[in-house]
């Protein structure tokens, strides 16, 4: 099998794989992680707010999202987002948002559920005395969160957040259901068109492995650096 390896297929599609595919994957990963962390933090704050109703809504949202396979969520959002857009803006026909926007919204909403659990753990890992001390100094709730609690929670959870981002990086490959050109999707499209599955998947494995390894190496370095400050 390996004797007849056709590396030419990789060479010919190199530009497509990296300029289109990898750029798309990294953009989607980066924006989703950013959006997911921001929304996730808001959801976590809702859950910890002490208002029963708000907490319950957030809890149900998180459980619901985490119960569904991402592929199905991507599918549903692709078809629902235009209608939601229509409903929100009151337009006469569904707002066509494009596959990328739809995927981005999906990933942000889906990952927010996971990130919110991480941020919640991060906030809870901070001793009760910290917000108490901030309050005792006269800081308001918002100031306490902004200057005291969140910076620490974020620091404590950075390694976990990055690990989740690596998972997200791999999960972006599921946009294949929308036929979008992420790295793995691009690889598998070329592979299927040219009948070179084995070569392409092996190559994709190597690329993902290398990038994830670099990232998790970075996480370890960072972890070592942060732990000095504590």
């Amino acid at each position, binding site marked *: 099998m390996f004797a007849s390896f056709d590396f030419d297929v990789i060479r010919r599609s190199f530009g497509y794989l990296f300029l289109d595919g990898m750029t798309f994957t990294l953009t989607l990963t980066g924006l989703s992680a950013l959006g997911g962390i921001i929304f996730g933090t808001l959801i976590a704050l809702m859950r910890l707010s002490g208002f029963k109703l708000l907490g319950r809504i957030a809890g149900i949202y998180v459980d619901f999202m985490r119960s569904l396979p991402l592929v199905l969520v991507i599918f549903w959002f692709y078809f629902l987002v235009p209608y939601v857009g229509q409903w929100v803006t009151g337009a006469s026909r569904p707002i066509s948002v494009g596959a990328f926007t739809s995927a981005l919204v999906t990933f942000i909403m889906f990952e927010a559920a996971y990130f919110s659990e991480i941020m919640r753990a991060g906030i809870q890992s901070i*001793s009760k*005395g*910290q917000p*108490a*001390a*901030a*309050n*005792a*100094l*006269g*800081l*308001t709730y918002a*100031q306490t969160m902004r*200057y*005291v609690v969140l*910076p*620490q929670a974020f*620091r404590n959870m950075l390694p976990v957040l990055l690990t989740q981002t690596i998972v997200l990086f791999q999960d972006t490959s599921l946009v294949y259901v929308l036929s979008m050109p992420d790295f793995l999707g691009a690889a598998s499209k070329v592979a299927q068109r040219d009948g070179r599955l084995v070569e392409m998947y092996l190559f994709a494995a190597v690329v993902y492995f290398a990038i994830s390894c670099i990232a998790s190496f970075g996480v370890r370095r960072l972890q070592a650096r942060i732990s000095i*400050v*504590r």
Partner: protein
Amino acid sequence: MIEIRHVDKWYGPGFQALKDCTTSVAKGEVVVVCGPSGSGKSTLIKCVNALEPFQGGEIILDGIRVNDPKTDLPKLRARVGMVFQHFELFPHLKIIENLCLAQEKVLGRSHDEAVAKAEKLLDRVGLKEHARKYPAELSGGQQQRVAIARALAMDPIAMLFDEPTSALDPEMISEVLDVMVDLAREGMTMMVVTHEMGFASKVAHRVIFMDRGEIVEDALKTDFFGSPRSDRAQKFLSKILSH
């Protein structure tokens, strides 16, 4: 200065942590609160600057009703300094930043003003050269002194201490107690939860003994150490003084 009148507090529906507590602290007075674990000392002191809400009675701080819904709590709290058992310095901020944060965000002082104030206070607690370090780089006793300086930076009208020395190594306790003794001598109004009876007998004007949410004894220092009236207080004193 601090008036506590018939305060009742429940944690949840089932558990009453404070029962009809009444006492007061006059300007410049130093009051020590002691009592067995779980007796409500921390709860009482937290009610004073409204860190814990309470259900019955009222607390009046410098003429302002703490439990009035119209009271601007952050502003009120900024006027009372509080020092916790576990210091609760903000570990992600340098010492100087710990002292400046609330000055700038709450009192609206300029950065330069805040830094000047912070440096003066650090000097006073003997930690000027540590201003650029992080809390984790200091010993426990040093951290607690920073915590006191942080509270003083807000120019408080009174200071509350919740077991400020019980998390410290025996050697470091005295560093912190010395700072507190100085404060007391300068006329700061103080309410101190502590089991350091040495400190109590040296600087307290009054001693309050609590048990199961009630103020069992509220006496002048000399009376308390001389002849505590309740059995419970007597037993307690004998235990903590025996070793």
